[in-house]
């Protein structure tokens, strides 16, 4: 299987403009609505804007959590939701350590980033890009990004208070 890829963002570069979010909800659901997007952008002061995506975990707790086997990994390594099987029970939402999967309020089905790169192509500042764990470690050799995500993990992945 190909190396697992995911979209990742730099909170020092991201301006918080929400274009990735709007592109996503428009591309997939033909509406503007951050709750319908597979990416979240969270502004955390001082001065940080986090674009947050599915991290495509190797152990994929979302897959194991689904009682209906609605989540599967494709041959290209992308975890997808089978809408016919998804009942919207939300167990995957609870299982995801990154709060990167949630239920679309319109159709009651789980939605998550499938690494299509529609947003990456349109980010005006190049704050988000497709990467792998290995590439990201090389890119972040001084650990700046890892530290930022680590320091703010509690706020970034907290489902309450939304």
């Amino acid at each position, binding site marked *: 299987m190909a190396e697992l890829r995911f979209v990742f963002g730099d909170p020092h570069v991201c*301006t918080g*403009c929400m274009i990735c979010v709007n592109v996503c909800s*428009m591309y997939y659901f*033909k*509406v503007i*609505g951050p709750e319908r997007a597979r990416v979240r952008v969270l502004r955390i002061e*001082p*001065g940080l804007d986090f674009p947050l995506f599915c991290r495509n975990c190797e152990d994929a707790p979302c897959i194991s959590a689904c009682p209906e086997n609605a989540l599967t990994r494709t041959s290209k390594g992308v975890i997808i939701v089978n809408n016919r099987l998804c009942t919207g029970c939300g167990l995957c939402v609870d299982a995801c350590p990154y709060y990167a999967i949630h239920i679309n309020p319109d159709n009651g089905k789980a939605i998550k980033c499938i690494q299509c790169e529609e947003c990456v192509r349109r980010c005006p500042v190049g704050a988000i890009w497709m990467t792998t764990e290995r590439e990201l470690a090389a890119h972040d050799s001084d650990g700046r990004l890892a530290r930022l995500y680590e320091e703010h993990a509690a706020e970034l992945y907290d489902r309450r208070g939304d």
Partner: protein
Amino acid sequence: MIKGVGGEVLWVNLTKGSIEKRPLDEGIVKQYLLGAGYLSRVLTDMIPVGIDPLSPKNVLGIATGLLTGSMFPQASRHVIAALSPLTDIWGESHAAGFWGAELKLAGYDVIFFTGASHDPVYLNIRDSEVDLLDAEDLWGRDVFETDDLLHERHGRRCRTLAIGQAGENLVRYAAIMNDRDRASARSGLGAVMGSKKLKAICVRGTGKIEVADPDNYLRVMDGFYNRMLANPFTPERARYGTTNLVELMHNIGRLPSYNMRQGVFEGYMKISGEVITERYLVKPRADWSCLQRCGRYTAVRRGPYAYEGGSPEFESQSSLGSRCGNDNVESVLYAHHLANKYGMDTISLGATISWAMEAWDEGILTAEDTGGLDLSWGNHEVIVRLTEMIAFREGFGDLLAEGSYRAARRIGRGSERFVMAVKKQEIAGQEPRAQKSMGLAAVTAARGADHLYAFPVLDEAGFDDDIKKRFGEQYLPEMADRLNPKYKGIMVKECEDYMVVVESLGLCKYGTQIPPEFYYEDVAEALRVHNGLAFTVEELRTIGERIVNLNRMFNVARGVTRRDDNLPERLTKEPAPLGPPKGQIVELDEMLDEYYEQRGWDPETGVPRDETLERLGLK
């Protein structure tokens, strides 16, 4: 059924504590669009003549535009309006951010506040749930603390709009802040909120905006994105925001300095965009759907002026810097930060302090008046200290909190001639002797001195091709010459009409006016795909004209005539002493004659003629 909007209007009666939801009035939208136009229609009908702007009889409206929350470049803005406590005429102010889009996602386009609460309250909106809540524990807190507390209470995804202590203390140029450091600053509408004991509006919208043409939407918006990104202004804006206008404006002699005695400032490089970008910029920040990202996020790391936050932009650099003869850049940044924190208009703030500094320099104000403060030009410690004293109305700050016009009336002794204001509002950072169109725009703007109502920047930086496109080749080269008064009446009239349309759509003037990338046909296309509204370019032009005339009639009803469309004598009679505009004055009468003729207003009185009002459906 109009698409792409929230669809409902909230009417909040603060006296009774009642909240009513009404459908958006589509009849008004057809005639006035949304945003500034919608507020103009409703408030002109509702606000009685002769009331105190700070009494419960004033009505405060907050509206998103038709394209606010859309994917059009820079479609983030909302507009706030009421009778202004600074000018006693039409008061209007706008800001970017995320608050407007969030209001749409909650299902609302406009909020009106009538009456006044006895005790401090804030409005909390979570989709269909709308409540007036006790704000006793928020009252007395600054904008940042209020934002923090509301996030703690209502979740980190809510967006806030609030006043700081300046609004509570009825400073006549108090701002209404949103998303921490975005300011609806002009016209003193923060004081109106304060007079109503309304501290904040917290919004969380989990809904969606349904657009009229979902199948073509992304393709059309991609086209707008690509044009905006390809425009040479975009990387320049991204790098400097508006901060490097200090250098550019000094170079053309348009940087107000020493209370507008002159348009060049010897210390300009010290407060320049280059210095701020090199030493203090942390990152550029953008608002909803913004590709220009002029927002600055900066930090001063040590010393008495240490802070971290959103600031500055050109207006603050000029008003708190060159206008006060101040070349201490860290004090400029810090005073701007404090103005955001307490919620004040940096333009009127710096301009009022610079009025006092000139009166001090002339020996009119003395230590006896100022409580011992030394108001020498460039005394940065006093500028920072006064910023706090004004917000809290302490000592001499209490006088300056009234604005330069009222302060000078109280002091007298000839200090009135140093008031650089039109209709009681301080002139912004455009020395009009160096750009004549800005002098005309300042006197014709509905809210008193204002560079944004017309934003006539087409003669500023070589937009000859755009002048040709928008007006025709016959107006070149005069219209493009910023020192030539010729055709400026034509230019300002057309710019006002377009800019009030832009303010009614919730778009930014960056992208629609500077750079002049998007014009009527582009916003008409956006209205088609987003709202399903098929306005022709001609119809949009007429709507712009209708709004401007309605704003004028609001002011005419309150006594405004040609006599009030006037600049301080310094700018019309005293030749510019230094720099590129040396020897220039503003030839105001000549430009005004041309403007009134274009508008169909009586040249003697400045009042719209009956046939003009009839043509626009205002009679």
